């Protein structure tokens, strides 16, 4: 972690990926989520233009770019959160394991059960720690009432929060620190046993120690999940991700393996951005 701070452009080695028989190649692993020529507009204002990219199974893909480049909008399109705001117009295809999630007969509620999301600011419910995690599985009928405690424990363990909260599960979610709250929100998402986890700048409201805890957690989680993380922190993208997409003014400038994007960018704009010349 420290080394990465010193040399932000060189991602730290990820041996577990290197070992996995050439699955680093985009073509070899299965794309779980895919955007094909997607554009998103709020009313008249176009936020995302003609973007195509794919997220591979058990990989972490980072979406980076300056503020207002459309990265959060793009991320939120993958579990149909944008339409909750109102006047949002989405075109192009979003494919989840080959199925268009914007097709007429698709229920967005079902999409969100498979594709979970963690938000920029920790947003626990004003309920107990236990209920925060148990609510999702409970309303979706994913677990019997008697199975909930085990499921909550497993989710909290995966989110590396169990040891800190196991004796106070009945305390309010708000009694936790900011970093713990964010891990609670991750646990809440994990309890749904989703397939994909979308994270929208999950560490931007946290201190460096909590940020490091979240990043370490992502390495663990990608063994089981496909992860997409939006961040404006380039060092973070370099540290945690296998693939990086660079967005500017709603357009995809460059998309490739994180090593390549940060050390041998193909586009001049990417180089300028990752070397801190703007943004």
């Amino acid at each position, binding site marked *: 972690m420290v080394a990465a701070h010193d040399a932000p452009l060189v991602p730290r080695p990820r041996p577990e990926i290197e070992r996995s028989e050439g699955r680093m190649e985009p073509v070899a692993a299965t794309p779980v989520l895919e955007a094909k020529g997607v554009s998103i507009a709020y009313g008249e204002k176009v936020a995302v233009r003609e973007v195509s990219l794919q997220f591979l199974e058990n990989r972490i893909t980072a979406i980076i770019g300056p503020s207002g480049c459309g990265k959060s909008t793009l991320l939120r399109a993958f579990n149909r959160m944008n339409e909750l705001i109102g006047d949002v117009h989405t075109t192009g295809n979003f494919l989840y394991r080959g199925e268009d999630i914007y097709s007429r007969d698709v229920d967005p509620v079902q999409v969100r059960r498979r594709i979970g999301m963690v938000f920029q600011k920790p*947003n626990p419910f*004003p309920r107990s720690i236990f209920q925060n995690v148990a609510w999702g599985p409970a309303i*979706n009928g994913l677990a019997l009432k008697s199975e909930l405690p085990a499921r909550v424990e497993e989710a909290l363990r995966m989110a590396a929060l169990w040891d800190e909260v196991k004796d106070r599960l009945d305390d309010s979610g708000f009694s936790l620190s900011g970093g713990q709250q964010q891990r609670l929100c991750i646990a*809440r*998402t994990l309890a749904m046993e989703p397939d994909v986890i979308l994270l929208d700048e999950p560490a931007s409201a946290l201190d460096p120690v909590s940020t490091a805890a979240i990043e370490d957690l992502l390495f663990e989680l990608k063994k089981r999940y496909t992860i997409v993380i939006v961040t404006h922190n380039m060092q973070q993208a370099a540290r945690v991700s296998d693939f990086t997409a660079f967005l500017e003014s709603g357009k995809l400038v460059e998309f490739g393996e994180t090593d390549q994007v940060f050390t041998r960018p193909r586009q001049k704009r990417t180089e300028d951005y990752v070397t801190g010349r703007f943004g």
Partner: protein
Amino acid sequence: MNGPALAERVTPASLFRQSIDWKELAVRGGLLLCASISVLTTIGIVVVLATESFGFFRHVPVHDFLLGTRWAPLLEPRSFGVLPLVSGTMIVVVGSAVVAVPTGLATAIYLSEYASPRFRSIVKPVLEILAGIPTVVYGYFALTTITPALRAIFPATEVFNAASAAIVVGVMILPMVASLCEDALSSVPRAQREAGFALGATRGEVATQIVVPAAASGVVASFVLALSRAIGETMAVTLAAGATPRFSLNLLESIQTMTAYIVQVSLGDTPAHTVEYQTIFAVGALLFLITLGLNVLAHRFLRGIHRIGE
């Protein structure tokens, strides 16, 4: 830059010396005067209620007043049991709550969680117009519309009856409940709803299990405020329920509420400073204590409203 040196121009004395600013004092005094009007009025009302009630209770024992079940201060044999008036008021309050609380909350949930911004922008002002209709109009509405409808269903219904009053007061406070609840629901942070949706919740689950509990204190406060308005409501209940103090729960009979009684005596020719006349202060004081209690309760709930976030 040819003036006197800085140290000479700005001495501590000239910089910090206090002078009396008459204009500032006048503004301050005027504002204080305006602010004290409402405070002084409140104190005045409390004093009048207390002294006149004290006079009343020198003639009538407190427990006879509070626990007596016959109210006949103007007819021989006289009796000063306030319970028939209290029961009349409670029938109207409970009945109007049954009408207004579920409907108002449902309206608020629809407006805040389901309705399009366009629809909301039409309905919200309509609610506010409804809240501005004079209560005497509601009273006429009860007499000419609700009561005939009730009599068609229950032929035993009297011309003046408690049910009609309860329903019309419910309709009257409905916009207030809906509007205040809607404010409470829409003040729940969007992040809470998004968290719910991202966990695969439906709109209904987010509305009833996330938004309403998160806004619970504001929602309950709106109920309490609306109910204290129902307790104080006078004109509509007088027109709809009549003036027959009765300690009964029969909704189809005429009753009298505390407020309706006060009107009856205030407008009648009861001589001042008699016990009959002082009854209205005793009843008024009791009414004041009940609504005060409810308002204190409402503020308790409102204080707890900003729990999410920081």
